[in-house]
């Protein structure tokens, strides 16, 4: 570690290298922390979590009871023991609450004034955070499994919605129109994801075992379908030709740079694809237990040197190396199935929510402070213990 710091200081190393090495070390030491807690508001399982992009301070959660809660993740108390408080909730008593389970929530990518939630009551609502009332409501014909807004879009504000209908619908937030439809799938759409690299590329996963990549600017069909055998038709049985998985595909996640796409399926496999060519990189993660009948929400770390994938597997979260495919560790702590997990890139923390109504925070275990720190603190006396010795100077005085 000291060698990294010295190299950074003397200019031998790129500044990013120290940051990446430290992020990786922190992710590898993720553990359930008894100091960090999240308020328990939901009465039923938690289906989805989303942290806002700007500050990483507020987190949304949607539950099976239709309740939506906003938490403040920042620790303003000076004590290490901290409970993330729920700032506001759209509870069962609210007039506009969803009637059935909320499947997906997402903050508006550019500020926290607005968030969108979609639910099994066949609606998608656009909420105003200040008043907690829906500014817009979209009705659909079938259960809405998932929706996603592009995190990089500046000119367009389309929300892609996956429902029971094989047609993917694009709703425009600016005009309220929903005429843009993407046709091609033959089964329910379980997961939709925009690329974090281009604002016109969309990936959709469906129960017909196919994952399609679309360019929404084009009027024709999908760009390509992901094929697990990379076009080698001889490997699959004839029905399984050109499919991404041998079962339903229920989870999609792009890596942070948008160059790779991960998909999980009910055939207990997770596959890594090159998102530009659609090629299966054939990284073998082994058996990734997946019994979810609706979408599975998993996430990839950002800013680490070998990236990590956090996948909910039964009642624990499995951490895999992204490109090596090896299982690094299993994070155990939930009492029931885990449904969603969310990675906080600035603090390298993982939040996971599941059927046991708990949101658990996995925090990197810090190095224990050395004994010499305690001695110097006690010498200086209690009043000055709060000042970091790095900020002390010899000429200012506290008496003024």
């Amino acid at each position, binding site marked *: *570690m000291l060698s990294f710091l010295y190299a950074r200081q003397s200019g031998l190393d790129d500044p990013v290298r120290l940051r990446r*090495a430290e992020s*990786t*070390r922190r992710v*590898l*030491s993720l*553990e*359930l922390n008894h100091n960090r807690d999240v308020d328990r508001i939901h009465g039923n399982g938690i289906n989805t979590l989303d942290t806002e992009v700007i500050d990483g301070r507020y987190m949304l959660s949607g539950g099976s009871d239709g309740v939506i809660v906003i938490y403040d993740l920042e620790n303003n108390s000076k004590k290490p023991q901290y409970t993330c408080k729920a700032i506001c909730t759209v509870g069962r008593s609210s007039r506009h609450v969803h009637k059935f389970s909320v499947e997906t929530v997402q903050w508006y990518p550019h500020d926290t004034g607005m968030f969108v939630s979609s639910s099994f009551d066949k609606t998608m609502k656009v909420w105003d955070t200040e008043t907690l009332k829906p500014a817009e409501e979209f009705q659909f014909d079938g259960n809405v499994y998932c929706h996603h807004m592009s995190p990089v879009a500046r000119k367009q504000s389309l929300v892609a919605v996956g429902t029971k209908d094989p047609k993917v619908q694009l709703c425009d937030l600016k005009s309220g129109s929903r005429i843009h439809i993407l046709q091609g799938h033959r089964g329910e759409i379980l997961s939709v994801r925009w690329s974090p690299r281009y604002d016109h590329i969309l990936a959709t996963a469906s129960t017909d075992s196919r994952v399609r990549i679309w360019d929404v600017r084009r009027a024709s069909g999908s760009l390509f379908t992901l094929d697990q055998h990379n076009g*080698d*038709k*001889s*490997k*699959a*049985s*004839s029905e*399984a030709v050109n499919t991404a998985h*041998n079962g339903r595909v229920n989870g999609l996640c792009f890596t942070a740079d948008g160059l790779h796409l991960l998909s999980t399926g009910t*055939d207990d496999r997770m596959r890594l694809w090159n998102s530009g060519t659609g090629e299966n990189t*054939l*990284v*073998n*993660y*082994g*058996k990734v*237990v997946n*019994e979810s009948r609706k979408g599975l929400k998993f996430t990839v770390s950002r800013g680490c*040197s*070998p990236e990590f994938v956090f996948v909910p597997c039964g009642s624990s979260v499995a951490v895999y190396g992204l490109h*090596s*495919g*090896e299982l*690094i*560790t299993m*994070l*155990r702590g939930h009492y029931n199935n885990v449904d969603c997990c969310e990675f906080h890139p600035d603090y390298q923390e993982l939040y996971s929510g599941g059927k046991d109504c708990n949101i658990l925070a996995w925090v990197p*275990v810090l190095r224990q402070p050395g004994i010499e720190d305690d001695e110097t603190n006690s010498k200086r006396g209690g009043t000055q213990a709060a000042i970091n010795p790095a900020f002390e100077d010899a000429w200012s005085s506290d008496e003024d």
Partner: protein
Amino acid sequence: MSRKRALIADTFCLTKRRRCAADSVTADGAADIRSSLQYLMTLFSRKLFNDSLPPVVLKHQLYSLHNDKTSVDKQVNELRENGDLLMFQLGFDSEAFALVFAEDYRTKVLQGEAGRETLGTVEKFLAKLIPGCSDLSFNKEKMLKEFLFTDPAITQLVKSGVLTVRDAGSWWLSIPNSGKFIKYFIKGRKAVLGMVKKSKYGEILKTELEGHHTTSQVKFQMKYHIHEIMGAELVESIQTTSGTLLRYVDGNVN
């Protein structure tokens, strides 16, 4: 969590690795896969099939011997491209692939065909297959145009067992007389999994399972089945101070 030592990223391990000797697990070369394959082939019981089958190994048995599945896949593909190894799709599981050394396959097939009138066609097929082609299945167009076989010749190949029907107009590459193998394999796998499930707490030490007396259902060697269920992740393998522990995983299809 019972991790004894915290996980350390590779970047921080440089000095440590320079000083200690390299782990045997990290130094996997192409030669290692071949030697693992040969070891697994010795576990295959030839006498059971009266020597009519070449030794067959399943691809996921290799996963139980080596940690990095992606590099195992890569090396197997390299061996297949060189023409040393042949891969077959067994019917019962879309992910279970059988591996046979090309030389063994050729000798056994020709041995089985000796004296029959299909010998000539089979020889021609093997000559086309072994050096170049690494496909698992063939469709009619390929057989007629590339390999220049006629329809009656294709029927002869199916009769001799080298091809099995996949669907109208396409065939899987297969091992002749492998029906018995698949039947014993599935029965044996079910019996071994049942042994793990019935043991106290649903878990058993690997060495203890190897020493278990084999029931009449299990025709292959116990080690063969154990490698297979470990590699297919039908049981969870946990390292303990007394060796590897195999724990039955609920929710298996079998």
